[in-house]
């Protein structure tokens, strides 16, 4: 068994993967999540998977053992452990994860995770995202926000769309030559802009959810200038706060990922700026500033090739002089989906029939995403607005028929439904009626450890490729939100 890709961070309150799966100390609790793949060539029985350790004393992980009675050949099972990153130091960290079965020698997988440290200085209104290779400072100059939405309900999260950002990358140390190190020898610097912007919004509503006195996040910010409003079409009305937070997490990921779209996956403004501004021998680059201005030709949408008009200015400051480079262009989202297929029962009998949801995610080349390529979950909402988060997996286990066939399957257990109705003191009769199913999916970073850093940088994970929740610029128009499936639950 082996872990093929870098383990990634899931924010536990929203269930959403953080940008590119990178961990940040500003969100104290995060799920260390990995896909463990059975590449033994045969079925494995009675497999235990547990977390052995992490190479940072500042990270504490809650131990937990996952037992899989069976793992089909080729299947990737998803495992995750809750970690506290508040006292972590930024850098690459090794994690050791053990798989063991009676028929298999103990397998120890040592993989690297990436940890950044983001903070906010309210005096200067600057965010800083620190990694060993340098620090990215960001000032959020202008955003579009859903001010109306959040005004009346403090616990209802605010969605922000980036418009103008001023960023300075300070390499550590200053470097000689045309090109500096990539952070972690992997992602582009633009990923850290995404991290900062996403944390600024997600952090704010996590803090609001937990309330004062319960330390949960280390970064919150303020935004004075807004040049427009954005609204959300989401199944949030009537939902309990945790599910609204999930939807907000999804929307914030979509909104903040516009930075990734505008700054392009093949080469980001820092790399293109470096290419366009060669330096003299012995000249030391001290900082690189990028100011971006995003104009939305249409609302960002998960899985769609929406265009973003971007204007950016790059300035390289050296020990001798400064150089500038300017670009104005239109970029399209390339993390797209051709088709989402959802298979759910038209009707079923409560406490009798299995509430199974199946989904397929078809790429532009007509091939389906499969196995460990996606992080997928469904939000299932009853007729009386009680909601449930159900993970969907393509591991060939339990409700999923075959591993890696591109069908992601999950089941809402009736005992879970019953327990939540009791917990929320709702009348059981509310179980009957029409239930809505909303599907959400993010891609995972499939860069491998043997890749050249410049190639690995072009592989980005955590982009929403499917979302039942959408952003819109005109809240006077009918909301285009549609459930991915509707199920009639009968007595």
């Amino acid at each position, binding site marked *: 068994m082996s872990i093929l890709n870098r383990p990634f961070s899931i924010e536990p309150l929203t269930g959403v993967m953080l940008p590119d799966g990178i961990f940040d100390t500003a969100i104290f609790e995060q799920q260390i999540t990995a896909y463990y793949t059975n590449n033994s060539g045969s079925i494995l029985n009675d497999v235990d998977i*547990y977390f*052995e*350790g*992490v190479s940072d*004393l500042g990270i504490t*992980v809650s*131990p937990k053992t996952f037992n899989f009675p069976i793992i089909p050949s080729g299947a990737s099972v998803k495992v995750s452990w809750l970690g506290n990153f508040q006292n972590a130091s930024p850098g690459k960290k090794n994690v050791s994860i053990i798989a063991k079965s009676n028929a298999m020698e*103990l397998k*120890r997988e*040592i993989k690297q995770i990436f940890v950044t440290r983001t903070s906010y200085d309210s005096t200067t209104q600057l965010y800083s995202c620190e990694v060993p290779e340098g620090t990215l400072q960001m000032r959020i100059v202008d955003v579009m926000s859903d001010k109306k939405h959040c005004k009346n309900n403090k616990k209802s999260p605010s969605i922000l769309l980036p418009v103008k950002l001023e960023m300075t990358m300070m390499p550590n140390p200053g470097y000689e030559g045309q090109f500096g190190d990539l952070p972690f020898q992997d992602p582009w610097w633009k990923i850290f802009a995404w991290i900062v912007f996403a944390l600024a919004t997600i952090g704010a509503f996590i803090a609001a959810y937990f309330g004062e006195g319960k330390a949960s996040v280390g970064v919150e910010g303020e935004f004075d200038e807004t040049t427009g409003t954005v609204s959300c079409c989401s199944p949030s009305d009537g939902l309990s706060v945790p599910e609204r937070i999930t939807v907000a997490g999804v929307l914030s990921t979509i909104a903040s990922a516009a930075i990734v779209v505008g700054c392009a996956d093949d080469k980001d403004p820092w790399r293109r700026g470096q290419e366009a501004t060669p330096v003299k021998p012995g000249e030391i680059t001290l900082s690189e500033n990028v100011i971006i201005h995003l104009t939305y030709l249409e609302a960002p949408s998960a899985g769609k090739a929406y265009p973003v008009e971007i204007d950016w200015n790059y300035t390289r400051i050296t020990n001798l002089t400064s150089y500038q480079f300017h670009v104005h262009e239109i970029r399209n989202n390339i993390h797209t989906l051709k088709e989402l297929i959802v298979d759910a029962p038209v009707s079923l009998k409560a406490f009798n029939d299995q509430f199974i949801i199946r989904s397929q995610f078809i790429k532009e080349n007509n091939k389906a995403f499969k196995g460990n390529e996606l992080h997928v979950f469904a939000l299932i909402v009853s007729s009386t607005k009680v909601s449930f988060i159900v993970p969907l997996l393509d591991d060939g286990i339990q409700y999923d028929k075959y591993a890696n066939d591109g069908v992601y399957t999950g089941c809402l257990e009736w005992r879970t439904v019953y327990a939540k109705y009791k917990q929320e003191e709702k009348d059981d009769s509310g179980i009957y009626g029409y239930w809505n199913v909303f599907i959400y999916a993010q891609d995972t970073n499939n860069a491998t450890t043997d890749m050249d850093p410049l190639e690995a940088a072009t592989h980005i994970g955590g982009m929403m490729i499917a979302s039942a929740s959408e952003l819109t610029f005109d809240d006077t128009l009918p909301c285009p939100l549609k459930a991915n499936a509707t199920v009639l639950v009968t007595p």
Partner: protein
Amino acid sequence: MATKIEIYDGETWWASPDIWIVPGDDPNGTPGQPVAGQTNYVWANVHNNGTTDINGIRVNFYWSNPATGVLRSTSTLIGSGYVDLREGETKQVLCISPWVPIVVNGGHECLVAEALTNLDPLPTPLSDEFDPKRYHQIAQKNVQVISFSSSMASMIIPIQISATPRKRKSVKISIQKGKLSEKEQIKLFNQLGINPKKYKEQSNSVLFGLSEKNFTGKDFFGASSIDLKIHEKTSQSLYVHLGQSDKPQSGFEILLITETIDKKVVGGNTIIILKD
């Protein structure tokens, strides 16, 4: 259901064969001696000798300055690992946090591993002494390898004696020749990256003694034992003096340094002297 989680002591209890080092950047590499200033990984064997499966056993790894009795208050946590053990099972546990020994000790430090689980707990509160002889969940590896070639006339090796924060102690520190069974010797040598076939055990190839003085003098090897009074919260250095005997054969010799309080051995340090 009986529960018993163990990390075994050695034949001399402070030289546990259940703790070992892998020097270098690859924790799955070959065991060997720690390299000062560079990355090393620490491993431990943990055994479930009870009659029930136990999950989530936490194994803490510590380093301490070369000493006889090792204290929590003078030790540093390297990192932790978790292990699940079924009844009767033994597993190797890796401390994935790398250990970089400080150069000042030439890379030698004392290592301690302890296994923590609610199902076989250590007493609360924990005493400052690790006391591996008393607790089956704790083991110590206090073994130092010294290359003492015949071209060297003498050598001094520092060790540290510490008192707990709240209690002064009167101790006797002694040095004597030691011996290992062939099985333990082979295991220990392999863990230290020493070819057991290359070295044969010798007797009287080195002269040795203890002193509070860190200088060498002609024919000065100190004493075979020293009585010390250590005040609470303080440490004192002692020095092992080595010299060549008139029979400088190649091979190895083992010296044992013991700390005794009221005739009870409370700590120790094993020195393997290699002579080429």
